[in-house]
C-alpha cells in the first residue's frame, strides 16, 4: 500500500525585544548564568508581571504577515507543569483566546506552490536552561534562568504538510518572513527559532488521520527533514507489519539519526490551564491593527514578484535572492548602481553566495559593500578586466576588504586590450603548437579554444578574450 504523511509544525520563535516579556531583564543571549534575572522572572513571592508592549507589537506584525485574523480580545493563561526550567511551576502562555488565528503562508516545492494553513499565533514566555550532571543518587541538574521569561511566539500550522521537504520549505519560508519583519534573530543554533513536528501516516487518498507522534528537538532544517523522514518510515513499517502506531512524544537523536520515545500517551501532560489573574486582558482595536499593517515591510512573496516584474529576473533567481532580506537589499543596492539585473543576479547567486558560505557569513555580513560589487561589475563591463580576473578580484575583495579598483591597480590585473602587445604572444603560441594549428585548419573548431587558453595562460588571464580570438583567427 502507498502511504502519505500528514505533518503539522509548532514553531517557537524568540522575539528580539530589549527586555523580557514580563519584566525588565535583558534578553541578551549568553551571559554568565543567572545574571539576567530578577524577582519577576525568578517567580519570587509577591511580584507582578506586566506585558512588554513590544511583544504585542511583534506578535501583531507576525500575525498580519501570516494573514491571520487578530483577536479583538485576548488574555494570558497559566500552563502548569513541574519541571525546574520554569521557577514558578507554570509558564505564562495563551490558551483558549490566542492573539491570532486562521492564517496561511505559501511554499513552493518542486515547482508546485502550496498554501499551508496557520492555526494560531500566541504569545508566551521561554524557559530556562538545565545542565544534567551525573553522580551518586541519580546526579543533579544545574539551572540557569537567563532565558526564562524571554518572549516567544508559538506559531502552529494546520496539518497541511505532506512531506519532509514541504515541512522544511514551510520552516524556511516562515524564517524568511520573520527575518523580513525583523522580529527575531531566527538563529536555530542559538535556539531562537525552534520546531516540534506532529506527524502521522495514512493510506494515500484517505481522508481520516492516523495516530500521530510529536517529535521534539528539531534544531536545524536538516534535523527537521531527517527526523521526519525517519519517523515516517518508522510509522509505515509498523503499519506494514500489521501493528499500530502508539501516540507518543518522541525526541530526535541527531547523532544516531533516530527518533526515540520520551513519553507515551499514558504519561501525557495535563497542564490544567487557567487564566493568569496577574495579567489583565488585551483589547486590540482596528486602529491598532491598521497602524501595524501599514508599517509592515515588503514581504518575501511581494518582493519576489517585484524582482520578476521590474527587472525581468527568472522566478528561480528572484526566489533565491528574496530568500533573505539582507540578500535582497544587497541586490537592490547593487542594481541601483549597475542596472543590468541579470548580471548582478548571476554574480550574487554564484560567486558572491559561494564566498559568503565559504566564510560562514550571512548576507548582512558581507565584507564587500554593494558599491564595490557594482564597481567590480563596471570594471568588467568597461573591459578593464576579464570575467575570469573579475572572479579572482572578488575573492581578493572578500579576503582583504579592499576595493575592486584598488586590487586591479595594485596587482596589475588590467586587461590587455592592446593588439600590438598581444600579437607577439599569439605568434609564439601558434609557433609552439603546430599540431593544434593543423587540427584547426582541418576543421577541428575546438582547437581554437585550446589556443585561446594558451594565450590566456601566457598572460595570466589578463588578455582580452575577444581580441585574442580575433588575432588568432586572422592568422589561421
Amino acid at each position, binding site marked *: 500500500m502507498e502511504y502519505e504523511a500528514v505533518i503539522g509544525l509548532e514553531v517557537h520563535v524568540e522575539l528580539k*525585544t*530589549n*527586555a523580557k516579556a*514580563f*519584566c*525588565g*531583564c*535583558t*534578553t*541578551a543571549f549568553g551571559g*554568565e*548564568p*543567572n*545574571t*539576567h*534575572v*530578577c*524577582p519577576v*522572572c*525568578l517567580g*519570587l513571592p509577591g511580584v507582578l508581571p*506586566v*506585558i*512588554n*508592549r*513590544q511583544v*504585542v507589537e511583534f506578535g501583531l506584525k507576525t500575525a498580519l504577515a501570516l494573514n491571520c485574523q487578530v483577536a479583538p*480580545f485576548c*488574555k494570558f493563561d497559566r500552563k*502548569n507543569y*513541574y*519541571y*525546574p526550567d520554569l521557577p514558578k511551576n507554570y509558564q505564562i502562555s495563551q490558551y483558549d*483566546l490566542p492573539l491570532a488565528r486562521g492564517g496561511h503562508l505559501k511554499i513552493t516545492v518542486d515547482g508546485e506552490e502550496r498554501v499551508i494553513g496557520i492555526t494560531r499565533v500566541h504569545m508566551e514566555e521561554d524557559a530556562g536552561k538545565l*545542565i*544534567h*550532571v551525573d553522580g551518586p543518587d*541519580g*546526579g*543533579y*541538574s*544545574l*539551572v*540557569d*534562568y537567563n532565558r526564562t521569561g524571554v518572549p516567544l511566539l508559538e506559531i502552529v500550522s494546520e496539518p497541511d504538510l505532506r512531506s519532509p521537504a514541504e515541512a522544511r520549505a514551510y520552516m524556511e519560508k516562515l524564517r524568511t518572513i520573520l527575518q523580513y519583519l525583523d522580529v527575531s534573530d531566527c538563529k536555530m543554533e542559538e535556539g531562537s527559532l525552534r520546531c516540534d513536528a506532529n506527524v502521522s501516516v495514512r493510506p494515500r487518498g484517505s481522508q481520516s488521520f492516523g495516530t500521530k507522534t510529536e517529535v521534539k528537538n528539531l534544531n536545524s532544517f536538516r534535523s527537521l527533514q531527517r527526523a521526519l523522514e525517519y519517523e515516517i518510515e518508522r510509522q509505515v513499517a509498523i503499519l506494514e507489519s500489521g501493528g499500530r502506531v502508539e501516540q507518543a512524544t518522541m525526541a530526535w537523536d541527531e547523532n544516531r539519526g533516530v527518533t526515540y520515545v520520551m513519553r507515551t500517551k499514558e504519561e501525557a501532560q*495535563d497542564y*490544567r490551564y487557567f*487564566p493568569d*489573574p496577574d495579567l*489583565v*486582558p*488585551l*483589547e486590540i482595536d482596528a486602529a491598532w491593527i491598521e497602524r501595524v499593517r501599514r508599517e509592515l515591510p515588503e514581504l518575501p512573496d511581494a518582493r519576489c514578484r517585484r524582482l520578476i516584474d521590474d527587472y525581468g529576473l527568472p522566478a528561480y533567481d528572484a526566489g533565491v535572492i528574496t530568500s533573505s532580506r539582507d540578500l535582497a537589499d544587497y541586490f537592490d543596492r547593487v542594481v541601483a548602481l549597475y542596472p543590468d539585473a541579470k548580471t548582478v543576479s548571476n554574480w550574487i547567486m554564484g560567486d558572491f553566495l559561494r564566498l559568503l558560505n565559504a566564510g560562514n557569513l550571512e548576507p548582512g555580513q558581507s565584507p564587500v559593500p554593494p558599491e564595490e560589487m557594482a564597481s567590480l561589475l563596471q570594471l568588467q563591463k568597461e573591459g578593464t578586466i576579464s570575467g575570469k580576473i573579475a572572479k579572482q578580484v572578488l575573492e581578493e575583495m572578500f579576503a582583504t576588504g579592499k576595493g575592486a579598483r584598488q586590487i586591479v591597480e595594485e596587482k596589475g590585473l588590467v586587461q590587455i586590450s592592446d593588439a600590438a602587445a598581444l600579437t607577439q604572444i599569439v605568434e609564439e603560441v601558434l609557433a609552439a603548437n603546430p599540431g593544434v594549428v593543423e587540427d584547426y585548419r582541418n576543421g577541428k573548431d575546438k582547437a581554437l579554444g585550446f589556443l585561446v587558453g594558451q594565450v590566456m595562460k601566457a598572460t595570466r588571464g589578463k588578455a582580452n578574450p575577444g581580441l585574442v580570438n580575433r588575432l588568432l583567427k586572422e592568422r589561421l
Partner: protein
Amino acid sequence: MPITTAEVEHVALLARLKLTPEEKAAYTGQLNAILEYMDKLNALDTTDVEPTAHVLPLRNVFRDDVARPGLPREKALAGAPAASEGQFKVPRVV
C-alpha cells in the same frame, strides 16, 4: 458524586502532593462540595453575560521595552536550597 478518589489521586500526582488515605477521602468530599456549588451556579441563566476574563476592569496595561539591571547573582541564588557554579542546583528529574 462527580469526583472519585481516582481523580483526586490524579490531581494530587499532577500537583506533586503525597496524600494519606484519610486526606484523599477528605479532599474527595471537599472537591465534591465545591462542584455541587458550581451546579447551583449553573442553574442561573447566563446567556447574556460575558465570560469574566479578569476581576479588574483593566485592559492593556503595558511596560516599555527597556532593559534594566536585575538582581546581582549572589542575591538571586541567596534563597536557593543549593547552588553550584552560579546556578541553582536541583535533584535530577530526567
